[in-house]
């Protein structure tokens, strides 16, 4: 594995449930320390894309490489060990477990726990104080912050995050954007975000792709002039 390997590379990937393909012919390249947003409305195949990368769904066609290594056939549970942190959109927390236990499950072993919690506390001060609270009793925004915190616990090389900004008030969205950018700057982690919220995506990401009916219809740099308006238009049209 060379240091120059891409963090994530998808070549002509199609996948779905059984015979029904939900995403078709997806090509993506994500360099280390890059943040990339996949934008699209519900039912366009965004979550399916992340589940395919994680090995929950088999790749029907194409190839996925993570840090230069083909991941076809690698079981989902081995992904964390390869430095990948995945945060699904739904049922992403163990509601009945404590905040601390949820975070513990983000780490491969117990020994680093105290050290990592201290680091997490610098991002989200409320977390170290409320390790014993049941995760399900946190507010919606706090739960989303806990999700990001858990993904950061193991100091991943690649983060896959599904709709973290959904249903949040702008202050929390902004906070999450700051944390993600800070972590990228500090550790060089690459991130693939799945989003509907264009403002959040443009605040965090470097590049974007718009996914529509399972296919990428547009891709570019988010800093390009007029990209925001173009994406918004694409999201609300057929």
């Amino acid at each position, binding site marked *: 594995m060379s240091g120059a390997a891409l963090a994530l590379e998808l070549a002509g990937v199609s996948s779905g449930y059984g*015979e*029904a393909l*939900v995403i078709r012919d997806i090509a993506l390249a994500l360099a280390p320390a890059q943040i990339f947003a996949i934008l699209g*409305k*519900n*039912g366009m195949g965004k979550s399916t894309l992340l589940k395919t990368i994680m090995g929950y769904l088999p790749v029907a066609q194409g190839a996925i490489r993570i840090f230069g290594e083909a991941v076809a056939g690698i079981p989902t549970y081995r992904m964390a060990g390869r430095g990948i942190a995945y945060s699904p959109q739904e049922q992403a927390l163990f509601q009945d477990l404590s905040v601390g236990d949820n975070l513990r499950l983000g780490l491969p072993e117990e020994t680093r726990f105290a050290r990592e919690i201290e680091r997490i506390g610098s991002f989200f001060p409320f977390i170290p104080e409320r390790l014993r609270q049941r995760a399900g009793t946190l507010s919606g925004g706090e739960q989303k912050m806990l999700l990001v915190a858990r993904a950061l616990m193991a100091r991943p090389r690649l983060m896959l995050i599904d709709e973290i*900004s*959904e*249903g949040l*008030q*702008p202050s929390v969205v902004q906070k999450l954007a700051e944390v993600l950018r800070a972590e990228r700057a500090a550790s060089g982690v690459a991130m693939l975000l799945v989003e*509907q*919220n*264009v*403002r*959040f995506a443009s605040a965090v990401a470097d590049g974007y792709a718009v996914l529509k*009916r*399972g296919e990428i219809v547009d891709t570019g740099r988010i800093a390009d002039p007029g990209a925001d308006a173009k994406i*918004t238009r694409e*999201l*609300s*049209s*057929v």
Partner: protein
Amino acid sequence: MSKAVPAVAPELRKVLGLAIVALAAVGVAPFVLDIYTVNILVRSLLYACVALTVDILWGYTGILTFGQSAFFGIGAYACGLAFTHLGLSPGIAVLAFVGGLAIAAATAALVGWLAFGYGVSPIYVSVVTLVLPIVVTQVLFSGGTFTGSSSGLSGFDTVDLEVETWFWIAGAALVVLTAAAWVFVRSDAGRLLVAIRENEQRCEYLGINTALLKTLLLVVAALVAAAAGYAYAAYTDVIAPELAGFVFGTELVIWVALGGRGTLIGPVTGTIVIDLVSAYLSGSLPFVWKLVIGLAFVLVIVVLPQGIVPVIRGAWQRILGRSGARAAHVPALEPAPLRALQGEGGTGPAVALSGLSRRYGSLRVLEGIDLSAKPGELLSLVGPNGAGKTTLIRCIADGHERSAGRVVVQGHDIGRRPPQRCVAFGIGRKFQTANVFETLTVAECLHLARARLERPSLWRRDAAVRLPEPAHQVVVATGLDRQLGTAVKHLSHGMKQALELAMVLALEPSVLLLDEPTAGLTKPERTLIGGILTALARKHALCILLVEHDLDFVREISSRVVVLHQGRIVLDGTVSEVVDSALVRTIYAGEEHAVAGAAS
């Protein structure tokens, strides 16, 4: 009607021929077989009748039952108790038979009521049928000298018939039952059993009272098992609590699984072979034989879940060089007879909601929804994720769903009625992901959708599927009419969506509930569906409630748009008023807090 006969006759003639051959074999068997074998076979044949009921319940309908032994035991004790305590006379014999069957039927109805009530878990029927034989056995144990307790009753005066006669009775009964079951499972009503196994929810939303049907099936199965038990007691002159027991109940399941669930002939052969061999080996190798059966059962469940007979049949057909696949029965499409539209002439709303709310614990998904829609209106419900759109659809289609408020469909308050009753008021609901019957053919799915309006035949396949014009239009426009014989699982995602829409339209609804009908469809497919929907609203005065994310699609087809946000209606107006409003654009741009401010 007359056209139905040629389509079905060859199949019927074949089963009739086979039945006559089987009856002849039954007739001859006592003259060729030794008396010991004939003697044992009477019992095996009676067991096979019961195994057949297990196959219909479990193999076809998906109701895993451990309790058919209980009904067998009830029949057997009705006979044994009557003959022991009341003596033997034709009158007593008939009375005991009728009485035993009546108790069995009542018990089965009770099981059905317990197991198929609203919201009861699907596995509960297996729990109740496990408990039932245990209870019956204990009741028999506690009967003292009346039931003979643990040793049962024996040596009572019983019907004096030769072994051969018993053999003929049991054999003929089995042949007739198997043939009848064969005809039944291949009939339109028989397809309904498979549909219930596959997707019971869809059946309910096609207006079919599945709980009642399953209970009826339990009752008929109980009657057959009780009759077999009665014959068993009259023949062997020995009854014991084990006949009603849980172990016998599970043995029946084992025989059915080994033979091949869902094949009728597999369970019948399996039962006869295993019981006969057991009888022969019970003297020499009883434990080893039971061990072999146990091992075979585990192996079959793990490796050959379809059982042994289908494997043998497949091999046989390969040897003969025949393909095992039967040509699918492909009926013709016909227009449905015109029916008077429900609520015709009334000027009232097609659907009216007042004060509707839905809470999950402390979470309020819908709050204070007041909404009414007229016939001919195409009303789109839009709003961000979690706004409560799908929940609202659910509350209109199922009386148990809402926490408070009223839902009136075509002038009928739905109260706490289950989905199939709401369908009867004129509701037709299409789900978000295609909700169809994967193993059935397109024609079978469409036919099932008509089951509410045209009672399916118990013994034949309809030669035609009669569809009302809108459903027919969808079928033809999407090319489903050329795929009538195709199994649904081979259809594309878009075709499945179209099929479900056609099925819902076949219900002849007055209020159509559509949850993202175009999700995952190609652009031409969406245009097509959009055109059909607007025509339905305009020409057929259907009231259509549509959940949709795609604002362009909404703009093209709606006559009115309602915006839901955080469980409340925040906007209600014409397309131009709503879609182009700043509020909606803010919601869709993801700045959702702005909405609350704007709405208040």
